[in-house]
């Protein structure tokens, strides 16, 4: 009891001194906590993580410049690392964060704000999931982005194009010497004459739909190439051809082509410019418009040749319902089943491109098809050889056909 009384007396007497001591302890503790917190936040002084090493910066190849690729070696221990911060500096740019890369990567493409012919240096830091960062790595050697004049990764494409060009020129020269080149029968194109004849007998027009793609598309060009012999046949049979178009340039080309066909047949007086007309530029409005023509005019023959998409079946089924003989051809593989189902004849894929040569029988055009066949033969051989050799681990043939 005495000691308790003594303690009370002691605290009462030294209250001010004890309060000061307690306040001092709290202050020191607060300072220590603050210092520890700051150590956790200061990035460069962390000792827990190692940064990536051997940072290499280089200009990205085969491009228009303005891109730098950064490569690095992973730190020895990556167990506590979430990713890497990438810092960039240049003469007119202070060191700043330029990007972030996940932990398992060893390459980053920097294309934000890079200027050509400016030297850039890169530093990197590792960062943990808690936000603790390592010290900065050594800076990379300076790298400069600049544009290239040739895409080395397309060298295989160029080689193939030149090879193919050589084949085409070779076969054209052979054709000029008068050598006959065999061309297999294409039933869809053989049926064209019959289809035009049928329309003439019935006294009804022929509807020619050149697809819904502009003139820049190779399928539309092929459609225009077929249009001319068709128009010539139509003129010879003194029938009528209707060509609704979706594109103003296609309309102009189609008008000239049909006019030329009629001129060659000696029937320019039968040519009616308003039969080759612009309908609309909207896909389904075009489909609705062409369907309307089919229902009202009841053409005896419908020719769908060119590039088609979702409207293919809308057109072909309506034509089928009107009882017209239908010949369709497209290079869009996805639309072929619809045409096969709804049309009498279907010109598939490359046959569309060959149609012009087939119909005109021009030896120079036919010779280009021969070059095409040889090209296909080459690809087939490469496919067979590539498959066979890849079984034994030799993949060099595959690399010929892939972009590097």
């Amino acid at each position, binding site marked *: 009891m005495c000691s308790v009384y003594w303690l009370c007396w002691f605290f009462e007497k030294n209250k001010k001194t004890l309060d000061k001591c307690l306040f001092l302890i709290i202050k020191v503790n607060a300072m220590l906590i603050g210092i520890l917190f700051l150590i956790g936040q200061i990035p460069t002084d962390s000792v827990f993580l190692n940064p990536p090493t051997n940072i290499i910066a280089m200009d990205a190849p085969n491009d228009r410049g303005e891109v730098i690729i950064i490569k690095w070696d992973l730190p020895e221990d990556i167990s506590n690392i979430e990713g890497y911060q990438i810092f960039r500096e240049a003469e007119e740019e202070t060191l700043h964060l330029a990007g972030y890369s996940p932990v398992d990567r060893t390459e980053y493409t920097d294309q934000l704000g890079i200027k050509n012919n400016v030297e850039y240096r890169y530093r990197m830091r590792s960062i943990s999931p808690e936000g603790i960062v390592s010290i900065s790595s050594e800076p990379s050697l300076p790298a400069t982005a600049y544009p290239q004049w040739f*895409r080395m990764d397309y060298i295989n494409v160029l080689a193939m194009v030149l090879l193919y060009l050589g084949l085409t020129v070779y076969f054209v020269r052979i054709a000029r010497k008068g050598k006959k080149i065999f061309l297999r029968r294409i039933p869809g194109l053989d049926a064209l004459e019959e289809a035009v004849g049928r329309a003439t007998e019935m006294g009804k027009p022929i509807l020619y739909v050149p697809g819904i793609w502009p003139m820049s598309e190779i399928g539309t060009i092929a459609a225009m190439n077929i*249009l001319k012999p068709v128009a010539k046949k139509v003129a010879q049979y003194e029938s009528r051809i209707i060509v609704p178009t979706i594109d103003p340039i296609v309309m102009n080309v189609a008008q000239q082509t049909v006019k030329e066909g009629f001129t060659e047949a000696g029937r320019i007086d039968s040519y009616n410019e308003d039969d080759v007309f612009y309908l609309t530029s909207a896909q389904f409005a075009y489909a609705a418009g062409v369907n309307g023509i089919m229902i009202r005019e009841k053409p005896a023959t419908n020719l769908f040749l060119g590039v088609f998409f979702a409207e293919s*079946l809308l057109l072909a089924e309506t034509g089928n319902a009107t009882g017209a003989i239908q010949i369709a051809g497209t*290079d869009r593989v996805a639309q072929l089943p619809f045409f096969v189902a709804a049309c009498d004849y279907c010109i598939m894929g490359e046959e569309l491109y060959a149609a012009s040569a087939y119909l005109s029988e021009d030896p120079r055009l036919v010779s280009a098809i021969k070059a095409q066949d040889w090209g296909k033969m080459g690809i087939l051989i490469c496919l067979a050889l590539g498959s066979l050799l890849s079984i034994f681990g030799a993949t060099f043939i595959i690399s010929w056909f892939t972009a590097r």
Partner: protein
Amino acid sequence: MLRRTLPQAIAFIIGFAMLIQYFIPHPISERFYNVIVQQWLIIILGFMYIFALRSFFMHHIVKIRRKKEGYWFSAMAIVALLFMLSSGLITTRGVFFDSLYNYMIAPLQATMFSLLAFFIASAAFRAFRARNFQATLLLVTAVIVMIGRVPIGDYLWKGMPDLVEWIMSVPNMAAMRGIRIGVGLGAVATAMKIILGIERSYMGGE
């Protein structure tokens, strides 16, 4: 000369320039492509629309004047074009024009697109008749694929989805790739014929 040689020379020069441009990544080459493809094409297209509109009006006015079957559709097409054009030019903020597009044109196009479902059904009915061996094979394959694509296929036989996947990725893919290789080569051959001036039908000349 103006009729044949000049267009052919333009096709040759521009064709080869575009071919070379593909292999040059330099910004100069990029600018050349943008000028040719974007600016020139837009300018040409702008002028071509004048011809297109002339063609549009001539075609429909003739139909109305001669009172051909369905001539009132032509009248409606002209009224719709003028109404749409004036609403775009007169209304300042484009709200009315946007409403016309969103609440009239878009639903009309969606209606046309939705008709495809019925056309697919009627085309499939005709295509899947077992007339000969090939048609029967097509019918059987189509039935397997259709059943395998819906939950009942898995319910009937666990291996059905795998069988469908095999059909799609092996025999179907092989045929598609065969056609695509042909299309690719054919497209290159046609482009070369045009560049070299062998193919001239699209210019109106032989």
